[in-house]
């Protein structure tokens, strides 16, 4: 059936590979080819010792872990419950999860800046003031986690929804319940294992979002990984390109490894009826 398309398919894949790989290859050449000196790997060997690299990367990873945990804890129960029969709530959740798409990150951060300014001015004599101080702690800015969770909602919703579409939650739960499982057991042992692919998918998207996020953190004055790359770029062009390439490759390797670990990923929306 698909065999007739083979030559056409290879042309498309070839062109795509060219467009997506050439910038990476060129970037690598750019980093090792020092004008007038020939090949040098200094740009890579100096990365680890460069000021701020390790701390900014760790900060990004911590933020990513916290964001993934919060977004899954909020979203998984909600979307599973929708499938189990609160059909009237479905549009509500769908709209709520799509709202962040309507507010671009730059507008969102403009709003956050305004709220953070307004808080201390009006709440200085209330316990809430402490909250404002705590969430802006430089060591671990909780405010970024809050922002990232909101920004991840649309992607996570789509990923989970696609995963749930492929399984019959209600039948699964009812089967588990009639076999004597309690509600939590039914959800944890019957539904979640079937959602593994969707959960991994949602986690990948969130991880990639947080690792590359620049707008919100930059304008709020924090320095996670992407902001660090930006700052280095001003001083050392080759170093910044080297880190950019590495960050892409490392993210990619990480995700491929996770995808492999996930094994049988649910084929989204693939109904074989």
């Amino acid at each position: 059936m698909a065999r007739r398309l083979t030559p056409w398919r290879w042309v498309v894949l070839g062109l795509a590979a060219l467009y997506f790989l050439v910038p990476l290859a060129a970037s690598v050449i750019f980093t090792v080819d020092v004008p007038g000196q020939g090949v040098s790997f200094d740009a890579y060997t100096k990365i680890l010792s460069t000021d701020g690299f390790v701390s900014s990367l760790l900060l990004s990873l911590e933020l990513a872990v916290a964001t993934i945990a919060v977004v899954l804890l909020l979203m998984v129960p909600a979307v599973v419950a929708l499938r189990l029969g609160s059909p009237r709530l479905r549009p509500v959740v769908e709209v709520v999860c799509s709202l962040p798409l309507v507010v671009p990150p730059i507008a969102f951060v403009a709003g956050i800046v305004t709220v953070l300014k307004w808080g201390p001015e009006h709440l200085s004599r209330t316990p809430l003031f402490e909250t404002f101080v705590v969430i802006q702690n430089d060591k671990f800015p909780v405010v970024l986690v809050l922002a990232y969770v909101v920004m991840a909602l649309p992607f996570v919703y789509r990923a989970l929804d696609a995963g749930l579409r492929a399984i019959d939650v209600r039948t699964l739960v009812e089967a588990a319940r009639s076999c004597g499982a309690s509600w939590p057991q039914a959800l944890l042992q019957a539904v979640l294992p079937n959602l593994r692919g969707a959960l991994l998918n949602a986690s990948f998207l969130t991880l990639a979002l947080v690792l590359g996020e620049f707008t919100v953190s930059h304008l709020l004055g924090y320095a996670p990984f992407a902001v660090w790359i930006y700052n280095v770029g001003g001083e050392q062009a080759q170093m910044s390109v080297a880190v950019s390439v590495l960050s892409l490759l490392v993210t990619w390797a990480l995700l491929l490894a996770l995808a492999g670990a996930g094994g049988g990923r649910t084929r989204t929306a693939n109904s074989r009826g």
Partner: protein
Amino acid sequence: MTAALPRADVAPVASAKRRRRAPGWLAVVPLLVFVAIAFGLPAVAIVNGAFSVDDATTGATTYTGSNMTASLQGPYLTALLGSVKLSAIAAALGALLGLPLAQAVVSSRSRWLREAVLTASGVLANFGGVPLAFAFVATLGNAGVLTVHLGLKDSGWDLYSFWGLVLVYLYFLIPLMVLTITPALDGLRAQWREAALNNGATGVQYWRHVALPVLAPSLLGGLVLLFGSAFAAYATAAAMVGSAVPLVTLQIADALSGNVLVGQENIALALSLDMVLVAGLVMAVYLPLQRRSARWLDA
């Protein structure tokens, strides 16, 4: 029919039915509360700030439409229109190029290829921002590898321009299209194709009369999503062109972090509201399309 839930109500509903409904409400509440705080407060702040002016001397706040008017004039308007034009062109190209790529992957029987491309798309779709800008500067910038080796400078190539940005944006828009359209392509049943071919249709006819009409809502939905994504992009442009290309996101960032004149923050909020309105329009188109495509593909 085992353990009965505590009876909060005495409404005459079948116990099984109530047992299904109770977790529904409870599970959604935390999500709604979180969004109300983390998203609702900034959203209210945007609208409130967009329509108010603080008097620097008295500290009094008056409500007025002057910020909104100012945000639709002069350089602000130029930036807004520049963003819309860039996003529209980049989204159209991304959708056109993403569809055949997704189809090539879906119709391939190689599981490995599929996993690799989808995973790569997941990475690349979010590979916006600073690293992307630097990678393209190293490739096609003024001292970029291709620019130098192919002598592109003489042919008038300039990465730090409108079309340069389009080229760079496609790097994350095409993967986004692949991610968006793949589930829809998966939903195209082999039987439909077989039925069409058995009835004497050519491959082209099958695509024109069966596949594309079924895919149309998903395609348009993808297009709209790409537009929104390009419209909202800030980091790539900030790291690459500075302010050589007028874009609304760059204007907002300048007003937020630049040498702020009094009242500039509120202009930034007014511009933010403009962006929200454009993006809202986009979503108003997108959501019904999503529902339409689900009708065909959700079985």
